[in-house]
């Protein structure tokens, strides 16, 4: 850190609100899962507290940023924070990808008698022989017969949508680097619209899976990995879209300069991260 005066706020009231919000959220969610009637209400209450906290906390930070309180060092801390947060997200997805690879390459072949699994199969499931994806819901065909999601319908369109949104996002980045705030916001608008179409198509795809393919969350390990991976990804797309949307509005309101636009960068990094995860999903979940 070069030369003095790092901005250290003295008192912060939002973190404790965030703690209370998370606590209420988790208590509500757990009660909901246990079937307690109070669950949904408490869960909604916790969510509301968290939303208020985010408006308050981000609001403070935006005011300080626009007030010129942050210099290079503060900006670097924020960037590192976001960078390492995305790094942690990579590992979260890695756990689910790991489950997919393990089930497909090890667990299912063992269940059908390969390698060290010969006795397991002979004793437990002598009839079971595994092919991906048709019998990937296990020897007891949990969730019943299903059809796997094809790779070249909606998923391919979604891939193109996300890749295009990566391009528009980058054009927006070049715009703000040249100080063209309006242009940045317009390109972000395009990005947000592409993200929204992606999400709509994913809802469409899920409906198709449930209604026509009998592919559900309960379709054995195939359904589990398919919906958990694409579902968490979809949730991240929704968050990314929201972030870019807010950056867009801030752009229209005259925030950001060519030098100072951390919120844009953070959201853009996040968006590209979501993009890359999708490519992994497309290859390993849909295609191969």
């Amino acid at each position, binding site marked *: 850190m070069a030369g003095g005066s790092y901005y250290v706020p003295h008192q912060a009231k939002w973190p404790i609100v965030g703690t209370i919000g998370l606590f209420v959220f988790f208590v509500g969610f757990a009660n909901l899962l246990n079937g307690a009637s109070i669950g949904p209400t408490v869960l909604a209450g916790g969510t509301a507290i968290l939303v208020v906290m985010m408006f308050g906390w981000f609001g403070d930070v935006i005011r300080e940023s626009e007030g010129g309180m942050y210099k290079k060092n503060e900006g670097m801390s924020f960037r590192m924070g976001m960078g*390492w947060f995305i790094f942690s997200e990579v590992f979260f997805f890695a756990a689910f990808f790991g489950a997919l690879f393990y089930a497909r390459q090890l667990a299912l072949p063992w269940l059908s008698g390969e390698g060290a699994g010969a006795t397991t199969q002979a004793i437990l499931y002598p009839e079971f022989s595994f092919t991906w994806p048709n019998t990937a819901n296990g020897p007891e065909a949990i969730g019943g017969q299903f059809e796997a999601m094809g790779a070249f319908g909606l998923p391919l369109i979604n891939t193109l949508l996300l890749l295009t949104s990566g391009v528009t996002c980058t054009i927006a980045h070049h715009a703000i680097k040249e100080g063209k705030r309006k242009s940045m916001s317009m390109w972000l608008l395009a990005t947000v619209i592409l993200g929204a179409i992606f999400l709509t198509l994913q809802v469409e795809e899920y409906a198709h899976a449930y209604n026509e393919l009998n592919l559900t969350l309960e379709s054995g390990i195939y359904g589990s990995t398919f919906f*958990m991976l694409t579902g968490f990804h979809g949730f991240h797309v929704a968050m990314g879209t929201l972030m870019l949307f807010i950056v867009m509005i801030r752009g229209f309101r005259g925030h950001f300069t060519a030098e100072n636009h951390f919120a844009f960068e953070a959201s853009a990094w996040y968006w590209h991260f979501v993009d890359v995860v999708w490519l992994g999903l497309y290859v390993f979940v849909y295609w191969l």
Partner: protein
Amino acid sequence: MSAVDTHHDEHHAPPASSIKRWLFTTNHKDLGTLYLWFALIMFFIGGAMALIIRLELFQPGLQFVDPSFFNQMTTMHALIMIFGAVMPAFVGLANWMVPMMIGAPDMALPRMNNWSFWIMPAAIGLLLSTLFMESGGPAGGWTMYPPLVLQGGDSFAFFIFSVHFMGISSIMGSINIVATILNMRAPGMTLLKMPLFVWTWLITAFLLIAVIPVLAGAVTMLLTDRFFGTSFFNAAGGGDPVLYQHIFWFFGHPEVYILILPAFGVISEIIPTFARKRLFGYASMVYATASIAFLSFIVWAHHMFTVGMPLAGELFFMFSTMMIAVPTGVKVFNWIATMWRGAMTFETPMLFALGFVVMFTIGGFSGLMLAITPADIQYHDSYFVVAHFHYVLVPGAIYSLMAAAYYWLPKWTGHMYDEKLGQWHFWLSTIFVNLLFFPMHFVGLAGMPRRIPDYNLQFADMNALASVGAFGFGFTQILFVYIIVKAVRGGEKATDQVWDGADGLEWTVPSPAPYHTFDTPPDVK
């Protein structure tokens, strides 16, 4: 926020009696203090659970608690000690010391620092609340293996969410530490000039950011398997319960090093001070730490030698695990070489540090025994394993925390602690901790299984000894609290330097350290 000043207008702390100060504080020293007190309280709660376990195991047969409650105690003791005591204690030390050691005015993200701390009491509260539920708390072991854990009662969901909740705190806390170390160093404080405590924390924080999300993923799969009909860990649906163990231990093994790397850092600060010599092999210490961190990602299945892995897997994980002995050996040899021909004195921090070196090494050697696959098939899930990890965690991690507390108490409080009582604390702890854990090696090798409230008569004598040791060790810690409180309230004034052999930026500021230090960065030669 009211404070919009880039310079500090208040150089003095708000009064300690003000609740608002502690709830809203962004000061790294305040938050460090909160973390440390919180960890100490958890140490006693987790310790009380351990005493319930040892009370029941004092004699064979079922005496005091029913087996279900016994299982809740083994599960909760581990969770509270790992997530509530040792980890927050090290984060507390990082909060206090890292900015002072690198010449930074505070942590890089002070508001988030507050959030990371205040999540902890809420998350642990959520976890502890399960003990009061009709179904009782989680009883399937802290490793949460399915299918057993999925059979828990209403507490299951609360338990899973408390793990998520603590994970949020850990990730934010670690991101903050990494950003602080990489971005807030004073001019001239190059990476290879950083004190080893800072280095070990940098690497620990990296491990935390990488593996806590994996744990979050694993417990999320448990949650969906139980409530949403997924089949991750259900063989009938094409999943595998062993898959859980792989994911869990991919988190769990780096977690082990998360608990011990900062301890290595503490010991590497203390031994040079009291040997009055520079740390031997500084660079090799840094590289050894990084090697241990790297290896920690490729050894996880040594916790699972008996689940039925292919032979190639067993061999790979056996050899990769044994390789850890190399960088760990480098560290132990460096500590010993630091002491070689040093002008040593044996104040309490040094005693605990030496106790660490000896007894951690005992735990390290039993770990090497456990790494041998064919031997482990015999040792697995026996008290030998319990003896092993308690040797590395109690006279290992916990001893380093006590050493750190004695070492830096004068800097924190401005008063010297009572040296005589400190020495009593060390010797009583050391006698009792060995009485507690050493017999476990023998009953373990003789076949006593862990996590069972009753045992064969042949194990009776050793268990009685261990229980006596447990109560002795537990009650000795009241002395520790007394010494801390005494030093907080008064005592001999500490000098700024405190220890004549101490080296580092934290010793250049007054004792007690002012509320804000290094507002203008110091010059580091």
